[in-house]
């Protein structure tokens, strides 16, 4: 009986590994194209020899993007926007998600509905701009940080994850005379580390990738984040095609290289968060 189980488990395990490998290869192929393409010289695109891996490696596309005098400044701006922005996001979102996870809270349902409502209805770009303008936030990073301070979607999902913390734990803490704030910081947050890690990375990514708020609310070109710079380097104004624009600007490699430049920092930081949502923390805390 148990031997049969073992075999079944092995078979299952084999099946899982096999399937994941197949899926990963299928997902990876276009990514290899992006990476390979970003390194391919223009001539390989033209002769249609280029498919996945370039015969010759050319860093021209990267040089073109890195060479921009504003690159380092834009990178710095992106880091500031992302860093502080994510901190504000997590502060606002966590407090609210934790509060709303209390099933006994009077008025919880109204606020929940109010949050959901904002996911469905939005007043559009103009009124929001008027408010940002009236609050004197134009041309300041506060516009970006505050306008996107909470993603209702992440808030609702995070609230769900908080709500999954066993009531007994909370009761036990109550017995010990813990106030709500201490409960949050010493019990709920450590327990919800996977959720915290998940939404931190989600917020980081959304700040890192966004350019729309920046071009809308910022005027000062020195404040622009990396995404705005990359976008402008890629989208060239067609009717001003200058005979003097570097040849590389014509190459399909440039937009692909921009993707790689965007992804690499995220891939580097991802593992730091990954370890939190890949293993549970609950067991330890229950036993302590």
């Amino acid at each position: 009986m148990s031997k049969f189980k073992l075999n079944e488990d092995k078979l299952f395990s084999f099946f899982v590994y096999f399937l994941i490998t197949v899926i990963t290869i299928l997902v990876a192929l276009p990514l290899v194209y992006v990476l390979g393409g970003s390194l391919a010289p223009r001539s390989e695109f033209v002769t249609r020899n280029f498919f996945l891996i370039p015969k010759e490696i050319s860093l021209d596309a990267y040089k073109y993007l890195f060479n921009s005098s504003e690159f380092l400044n834009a990178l710095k701006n992106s880091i500031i926007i992302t860093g502080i922005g994510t901190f504000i996001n997590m502060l606002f979102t966590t407090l609210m998600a934790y509060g709303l996870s209390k099933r006994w809270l009077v008025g919880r349902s109204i606020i929940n509905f109010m949050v959901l409502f904002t996911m469905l209805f939005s007043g559009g770009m103009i009124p929001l701009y008027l408010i940002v303008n009236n609050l004197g936030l134009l041309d300041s990073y506060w516009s970006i940080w505050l306008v996107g301070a909470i993603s209702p979607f992440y808030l609702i999902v995070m609230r769900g994850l908080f709500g999954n913390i066993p009531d007994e734990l909370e009761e036990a803490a109550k017995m010990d005379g813990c106030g709500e704030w201490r409960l949050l910081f010493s019990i709920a947050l450590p327990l919800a580390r996977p959720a915290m890690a998940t939404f931190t990375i989600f917020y980081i990514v959304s700040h890192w990738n966004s350019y729309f708020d920046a071009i809308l609310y910022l005027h000062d070109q020195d404040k622009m984040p990396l995404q705005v710079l990359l976008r402008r380097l890629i989208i060239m104004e067609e009717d001003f095609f200058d005979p003097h624009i570097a040849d590389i600007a014509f190459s399909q490699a440039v937009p692909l290289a921009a993707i790689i430049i965007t992804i690499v920092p995220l891939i580097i930081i991802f593992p730091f968060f990954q370890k939190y949502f890949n293993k549970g923390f609950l067991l330890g805390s229950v036993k302590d």
Partner: protein
Amino acid sequence: MGNRFKKTAKPIQTASIPKVKNAREKRKKMIKRGLPIYLMLLPGVLYFLIFNYGPLIGLTVAFMEYDPFQGFLNSEWVGLEHFRRLFEERIFLDLLSNTLILGIYDIIFYFPAPIILALLLNEIRLRWFKSSVQTILYTPHFVSWVVIVGITAVLFSTQTGAVNNLLENNGYNRIELLTDSQYFRPLWVIHNIWNGMGWDAIIYLAAMSSVNPELYHAARVDGASRIQMTWHITLPSIMYVVIIMLILRMGGFMDLSYTHILLLQNPLNLNVSEVFDTYIYRAGILGGQFGYTTAVGLFKSMVGLILVMVANTIAKRMGKEGVY
């Protein structure tokens, strides 16, 4: 929740006054207990009021001939004129059915994909394998639709696509993947899965990591196989997240990524690819028809609201927790 409470509370109210007092006092007590929590909610609530509810004033535009120099109150009011135009639109039913069909495709084919992926990933024990695979799987999230559609064209365009050249060289017919309207919906869904599956799986993985390992221990002692544990422990344990995600997805049922569809759209697949979002785009190109496009958006939001409310009610009837 509140409704049900009200229904049972009413008869009691007329029957015995002391109990009402009791209930009121209890409520007061609960509010008092909640004070620190309300404090926690305050920044968030203020945020939503200022940056989400404030701009809702912009919805008045759906009932006016908006003029930026007159603003949201003084522009000319036209009542339900924009809505009338939408409902009388010759292709309204086509738009509705195309949009709904894509929404259904999304729920049936896309929605389960990240869940299945997360369940599979959860079964992987090799650390290095798991983390590298995961990194690869979530990376497509950062590739824009322009590039995704571009790569599809490089591979599948009828004239020069690499795959099509390969097919023809081996004596097969070329596949008109981008121009034949029958491929539009499957292609759209496959793009979505490629782009979002790994990313959305992260949420489910986070939920799985909160599952109490003792449950697995107990099951193993009882002789459960891994496939049984996945089915009977892991899946039910993340069901609440699945339900939340599903309800939220219903709210965005009519919201399709218009850049993606617009990029895939061409005259030969227009009959299946024209949806509200691409229609709005076309209508708004000229004349800045804010009034009309806002009205169409409002209509979509209303449909989303109804779907969310229905889904939420069903979830609650089934004894699950909804989103509000």
